[in-house]
């Protein structure tokens, strides 16, 4: 059960920064707390790659992000179909959104949260994630707070996009602060 404290968790003072802009179909952003040296996505990959039990899953997830989404297809619906409130969980789930037969990554142990910028296929923001140990995010101890946090990040970013605080630079497939700066502090 989510406590009031968790619901009221505020997401303030973070930086939106590029995580990867080297793939041909998508620019990936991440978030970094203002007082942290590591961004949230690096924390996720570093943490689970160090654990032998999750090393292979971490490598598969990274390949899905950089190879399949970044290089081959972009953030298309078929790969972004695990809707978790304000964010998308990666990897994609076995059943596709259009209700047809897809059966990949059964019982995948990890979740990485992401947001497509205005549902575009070429701009994705990656957050943190964790171990899916129960049938729901709420029931997965390692995941619950990360998921709530990712939803809060996503809400703040979507609000900033709506208000024009963040703008999309179409030419360079980048996000910029309203004054044109690359540094986006929210």
């Amino acid at each position, binding site marked *: 059960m989510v406590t009031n404290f968790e619901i009221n968790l505020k997401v303030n003072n973070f930086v939106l920064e*590029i*995580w*990867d*802009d*080297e793939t041909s179909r998508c620019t990936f952003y*991440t978030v970094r707390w203002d007082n942290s040296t590591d*961004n949230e*996505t*690096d924390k996720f*990959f*570093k943490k689970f*790659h160090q654990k032998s039990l999750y090393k*292979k899953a*971490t*490598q*598969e997830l*990274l*390949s*899905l992000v*950089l*190879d*399949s*989404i970044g290089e*081959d*297809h972009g953030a*298309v*619906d*078929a*790969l972004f179909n695990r809707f978790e409130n304000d964010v998308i969980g990666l990897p*994609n*789930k*076995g*059943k*596709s959104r*259009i*209700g*047809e*037969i*897809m*059966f*990949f*990554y*059964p*019982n995948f142990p990890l979740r990485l949260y992401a947001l497509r910028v205005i549902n575009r296929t070429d701009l994705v923001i990656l957050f943190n994630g964790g171990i899916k140990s129960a049938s729901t995010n709420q029931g997965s101890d390692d995941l619950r707070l990360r998921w709530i946090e990712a939803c809060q990040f996503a809400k703040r970013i979507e609000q900033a996009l709506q208000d024009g605080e963040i703008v999309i630079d179409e030419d360079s497939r980048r996000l910029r602060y309203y004054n044109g700066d690359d540094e986006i502090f929210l």
Partner: protein
Amino acid sequence: MRSKVAQEILEETPEETRIFVRQYADIIVRINDLLRQKGYTQKELAEKMDKKPSEINKWLKGTHNITLKTLAKMEAVLGAPIISVPHERLS
């Protein structure tokens, strides 16, 4: 630029893992595109593939892996290739 952490993990990732992930994603996207193009529902597809609903359900739940036979049947029903193998002879 690329995250240093991502670069390090990618360098350590076996080539076969990356090939597996890419090919799986290719198949997912391909089948989705074909289904959308054909406008088939899950039920219609099951009927056309001559599969029992329970079998389709096992796929949906992710408890069964796809086989080459299933892929061939799907290609036949959807009328287009899902995977292809190069035909040129190697010298």
